[in-house]
């Protein structure tokens, strides 16, 4: 347990260092931009000031829109988390069965079609997929499932809530990668001695290879996909009018509202680093249980 704590504190320190490095870069970019807003200031003192404000979550007021950044960003951040994890869940739900199926050599000719299908799905441009889905749904239900408070009150909140998640789950280009990774790893593990031995005893092969063949590769790939999915969320949130961070960032870009964007970048870096820390610790605890 003490070893676990040691590794955890090391990784945590590492993550904090990285976050500080990122904020330094952001601070530099602040000073490139003309105008006055929070964090703008000379030298190290200004940077420390910025750090203090960032970590105490006092983000100040946007100079462009004049609104409180914190109340703008935090709900959006929450919505984006929902979208990210939901779509990851959808991706995994689709990709893992295909990956498992394609690991079995006796189903190779069937699984080939499935993996081509996964390639097609994951390379559909997500903006087009979004419109396609909107078109189909709007045509057959007579309802436009974009996210808005009034619409969700009107009777189809579920659809407008689920559709973006499903679309991003399909359209972030990770399905084919998960299929390939899980399928490949599982096929490799299934030819290892201990799995063959389990098969010889009449046990389920999948049960024997689930740890090394599915769980470990899945954890490492899912967590490393999170930054990319936040990127994909920008487009999907734009299409579905989902009040998330991506749409806010895009709006900020159009308004040239750098502070909001910087705060968004800070929060997403915090988020990415936290998930990476989580991943490292999960994989670490797996490895210790092995030895």
């Amino acid at each position, binding site marked *: 347990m003490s070893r676990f704590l040691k590794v955890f504190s090391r990784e945590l320190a590492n993550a904090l260092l990285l976050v500080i490095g990122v904020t330094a870069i952001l601070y530099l970019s602040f000073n490139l931009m003309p105008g006055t807003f929070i964090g703008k200031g000379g030298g190290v003192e200004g940077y420390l000031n910025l750090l203090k404000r960032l970590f105490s979550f006092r983000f100040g007021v946007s100079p462009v829109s004049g609104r409180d950044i914190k109340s703008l960003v935090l709900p959006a951040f929450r919505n984006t988390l929902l979208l990210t994890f939901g779509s990851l869940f959808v991706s995994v739900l689709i990709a893992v069965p295909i990956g498992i199926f394609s690991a079995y050599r006796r189903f190779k000719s069937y699984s080939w079609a499935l993996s081509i299908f996964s390639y097609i799905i994951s390379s559909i441009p997500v903006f087009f997929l979004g419109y396609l889905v909107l078109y189909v749904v709007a045509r057959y239900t007579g309802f436009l499932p974009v996210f808005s408070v009034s619409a969700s009150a009107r009777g189809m909140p579920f659809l407008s809530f689920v559709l973006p998640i499903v679309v991003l789950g399909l359209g972030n280009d990770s399905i084919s990668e998960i299929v390939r990774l899980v399928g490949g790893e599982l096929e490799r593990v299934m030819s290892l001695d*201990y799995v063959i031995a389990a098969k010889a005893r*009449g046990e389920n092969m999948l049960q024997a290879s689930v740890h090394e063949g599915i769980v470990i590769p899945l954890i490492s790939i899912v967590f490393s996909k999170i930054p990319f999915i936040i990127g994909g969320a920008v487009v999907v949130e734009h299409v579905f009018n989902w009040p998330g961070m991506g749409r806010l960032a895009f709006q900020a870009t159009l308004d040239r509202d750098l502070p909001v964007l910087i705060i968004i970048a800070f929060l997403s870096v915090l988020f990415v680093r936290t998930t990476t820390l989580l991943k490292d610790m999960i994989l670490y605890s797996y490895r210790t249980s092995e030895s």
Partner: protein
Amino acid sequence: MSRQIAALEHLKVYFYDQGDRRFIRAVEDVGLTVEQKQVVGLVGESGCGKTITALSMMGLIDGEPGVVGGRFFFRPKEEDRRALIFAIMRGNRKKYDCRKGELFDLFCGLDDCVRFDADPFTVIKDPEKWLRKNGRIMEQMRGRNISMVFQNTREALNPFVTVGSQLVRAVQCLENDKNRAALAARAEELLLSVRIFNPGYVMNMYPDALSIGMSQRVLIAIALASRPGLLIADEPTTGLDTTNKHRIIDLLGENMERGNMSLVIISHNIGIVRTIADRIYVMYAGLIVEHGNKKEIVTGRKNARHPYTEALVSSVPTDADIKRGKKLKVIEGVVPDNKMETEGCPFLPRCRYAKGGIRRKCRTRRPELFEVTSGHRIRCWLFAG
């Protein structure tokens, strides 16, 4: 005559070399009979096809690049017979004679998926169908009827799961008891039966904390958990020191007596095999070169022995040899490369007796298994006719 439990007939396994585009012979014309409560030893140098034989009996050879042919008759337990018949009949349009008395052919219908073209020599095969068919039949048999102890002890245990839960899983194959405590109790009992005297402690360990001898015992316990009718032990003594070797062998013999089970023991060490086996099969370059009762093989009664067996036996030093400080005898040469298609006897380059007139015959024609006495056959032209 006691009852047969398994009979392998004319097993042949070829592998396809994708790069060179040709078939490599792994095993050819192997026949093996195992009777109830009998120990059969399979002896030969490494690379002569012992493990391939065992794996094809277990149905663990992937059908993709290779050809597996022959018939494997097996007598399942009473309660599994219906399921086996169902598995064999399913998907088979033609009627096969898959029965021989109480024995069932486990390779039944596999030949449907393979077709040969003579000129140019081509094998047309549906590997997936082959695998599915083979898997369907073998799934009924693995575990409860045939089980296997593997060669690489260290890698044959799942490193992510504790020993205890692996044992419990194996026990579950036999009795579908939901009661965890009962399962654990049975697992502890099994560990005790392989002479691990602190089962509670070992059950909570991960496999890499075990020593090799210990993990070999655990593996045997796991294999015994499902009370198989036939246990195949593939090199159960590799990597063990001499005292441990004999302990493991004793353990196998003991449990065989107790559990009403037959044992096929595979080893390159004829000294180990002869302490336990009733019948011994000697393999060389994918062929059975001699088989017979232990006495006939080891002592060479009436001086009838295959030259290879003779060399193999004499390379194990006796006590007298050690006392006199004699040098160890070595068989000259190496096992021939299976890629080379030999026309004659595969042992010819290393054979001491192939001299004079008989040598031409050895070079041009492959000998068959000639019967010397009843139940003792030798594949050598010296004993022809």
